């Protein structure tokens, strides 16, 4: 009882202090360079994407370069990352110094001033050698707030044995690709078999067909944006998506793309667009089906001209927290993470390096080639400041799923345009 009262009194006092200090701590001068020469640095990396070897190298090298300083890597999860960054980056005490953030999440934070300006360092970090789509995506009003960490776009996994059985060749144009997908499905004769696996909600992979036909989600600049899904080019692309879904896919019209492994291992998939790391999952004896993996071949989705199709650019950025008191040390960490050695370790593990000149480090097998080709023509979603709201309200999931369910493409696209225009302005 007495102890409980003490806790209460403690809580009371501390909370009172909290009210006042929380009200008074809204200073708004983002740090620009400087900071102590020695500090305990914290780096947030997401998921298990960064291999352990790279982590060890980073810690060791940084601590050798900066005697007296330490570096701690705290692993964060993609799920809930935005909530954590939103809170932690606003706190001078709690903020990590360097963070990894998904390349499509980056604009949310760059426009908000959560990251330090890296424009002056850009040349030292690689300049034009840095993957262009990433730098663009992290640039606001001519200032760059994040640099690429690694890239990884989806490419096509296919079953060599099924291709042989149906007498099919690896397609080299979009038209051939569609024919191949349809032929595979017909050859199987099963309703739930996918010549090309395309769950209805999967607009991220569906985007490739939209872009390949010359369409886009929205156009505009600055504050003026307009949905363009009902332009003739976009309609053509969306119709291709519908055709593919109806004639080649066996996935449910309202499902998402989170589980390709189950249908693949059940032998129900002839082709599917997935990021490279799915291979690891398929090869795992517990999670996947190593026997079928021997039959896998890969290629970059071909576009209508024979060049690789524009697929959605995936990957991560790194940035420095604006509230971090250790700006100089943080810059050194970012430099290390973009160095040849560090990026080389990432490349060995199948991640596309952040600098174009390092792409050769990926090796020259089938997978490396598909990775490089897919990334070479990859595209980002519109760079509108409010794009996060379009994704948050799930306009695109709705649209693609309804198209997959057999809806009227033009009508649905026009509706989606109205909503996108409304959200972006």
């Amino acid at each position: 009882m007495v102890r409980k009262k003490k806790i209460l009194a403690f809580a009371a006092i501390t909370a009172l202090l909290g009210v006042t200090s929380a009200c008074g701590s809204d200073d708004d001068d983002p740090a620009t360079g400087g900071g102590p020469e020695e500090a305990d640095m914290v780096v947030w990396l997401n998921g298990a994407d960064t291999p352990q070897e790279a982590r060890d190298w980073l810690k060791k090298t940084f601590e050798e370069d900066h005697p007296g300083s330490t570096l701690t890597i705290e692993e964060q999860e993609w799920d809930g990352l935005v909530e954590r960054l939103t809170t932690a980056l606003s706190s001078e005490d709690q903020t990590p110094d360097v963070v990894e953030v998904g390349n499509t999440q980056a604009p949310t934070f760059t426009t908000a001033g959560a990251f330090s300006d890296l424009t002056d360092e850009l040349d030292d970090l690689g300049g034009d050698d840095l993957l262009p789509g990433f730098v663009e995506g992290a640039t606001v009003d001519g200032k760059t707030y994040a640099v690429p960490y690694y890239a990884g776009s989806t490419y096509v996994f296919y079953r060599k044995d099924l291709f042989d059985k149906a007498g099919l060749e690896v397609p080299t144009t979009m038209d051939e690709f569609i024919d191949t997908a349809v032929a595979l499905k017909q050859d199987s004769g099963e309703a739930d078999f996918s010549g090309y696996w395309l769950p209805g909600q999967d607009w991220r992979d569906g985007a490739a067909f939209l872009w390949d036909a010359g369409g886009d989600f929205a156009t505009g600049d600055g504050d003026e944006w307009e949905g363009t899904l009902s332009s003739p080019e976009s309609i053509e692309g969306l119709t291709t998506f519908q055709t593919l879904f109806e004639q080649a896919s066996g996935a449910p019209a309202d499902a998402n793309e989170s589980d390709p492994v189950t249908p693949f291992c059940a032998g129900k998939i002839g082709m599917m667009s997935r990021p490279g790391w799915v291979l690891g999952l398929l090869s795992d004896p517990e999670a996947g089906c190593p026997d079928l993996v021997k039959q896998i071949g890969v290629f970059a989705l071909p576009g209508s001209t024979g060049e690789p199709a524009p697929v959605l650019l995936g990957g991560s950025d790194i940035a420095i927290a604006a509230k971090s008191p250790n700006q100089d040390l943080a810059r050194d960490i970012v430099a290390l993470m973009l160095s040849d050695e560090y990026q080389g370790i990432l490349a060995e593990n199948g991640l596309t390096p952040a600098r174009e000149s390092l792409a050769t480090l990926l090796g020259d097998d089938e997978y490396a080639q598909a990775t490089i080709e897919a990334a070479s023509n990859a595209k980002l979603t519109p760079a509108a400041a409010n794009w996060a709201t379009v994704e948050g309200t799930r306009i695109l999931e709705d649209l693609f799923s309804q198209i997959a369910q057999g809806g009227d493409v033009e009508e649905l696209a026009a509706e989606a345009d109205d909503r996108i225009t409304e959200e972006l302005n």
Partner: protein
Amino acid sequence: MSARRTPTPARLLANGLGLVVLVVSVFPVYWMVSRSFLPRNRIRSDEQVWLPTDGTLSNYDRVLSGDGFRNALTTSLSVTLLTVGVALLFAFLAAVAVSRFRFRGRTSFILTLLLIQMIPAEGLFISQYKMLEGVSLLNSVIGLTFVYVASVLPFTVWTLRGFVDGVPRELEEAAMMDGCSRVKAFFTVTLPLLAPGLVATGLFGFIQAWNEFTLALVVMTDPAKETLPVWLVGFSESRSRGVDWGAIMAASTLITIPVIVFFLIVQRRMVSGLTAGAVKG
């Protein structure tokens, strides 16, 4: 209650319906537990495995390897037990005051509790983060407990008050006539009758604190201080960059166990202990 005197057909009917309720409510839980013994590539499949006779413990291996689960269990247990203890004590005192006394500010206190209960908490986590940051209670069990107690307190006071109201004042007065002081009458007559209410509300607080996610996610950023739900989501995703259903099912099964243990202990201690006391008193 009067169950002993119920004629057999009615009792049989009640038992039958009870078993139906049991099967329906437990089936999803059974599905979770049974999936936890299947390798990942058999959890979703065309063939339904009703009983995993050739099961595996590998999911549990993955969950229990490393310190993650143990650390999270420690944090979760400390936060939850503290929350339940403090909330029950404070709520009990307040409920007695509200139910047994008329005093100035009583009505407004009750209505305020009700209004607090109605405020949507979804957007509140950012403000609560700022508050805990201001008092340096981030990444701390005390800080998280403090906010959790506040979130279960209105409900706990309200419900306990209902339970106190449910004990007829005449019972206390009868005891007072027998020569007990008011306080003693309260402790020997009323308190034992409140035991079921304390168990029910305590259980509520326990489960709320045990399963809370959003606030724990932003407040406990230090990986060594994550609570179980936060750890669960992170663990199941980070391992192999696919959703590791087997591990989620195994970890969830493990996470469910402490709630059952808590309930059994509390149920036995409070209900049997206190009602036994009441009979003697």
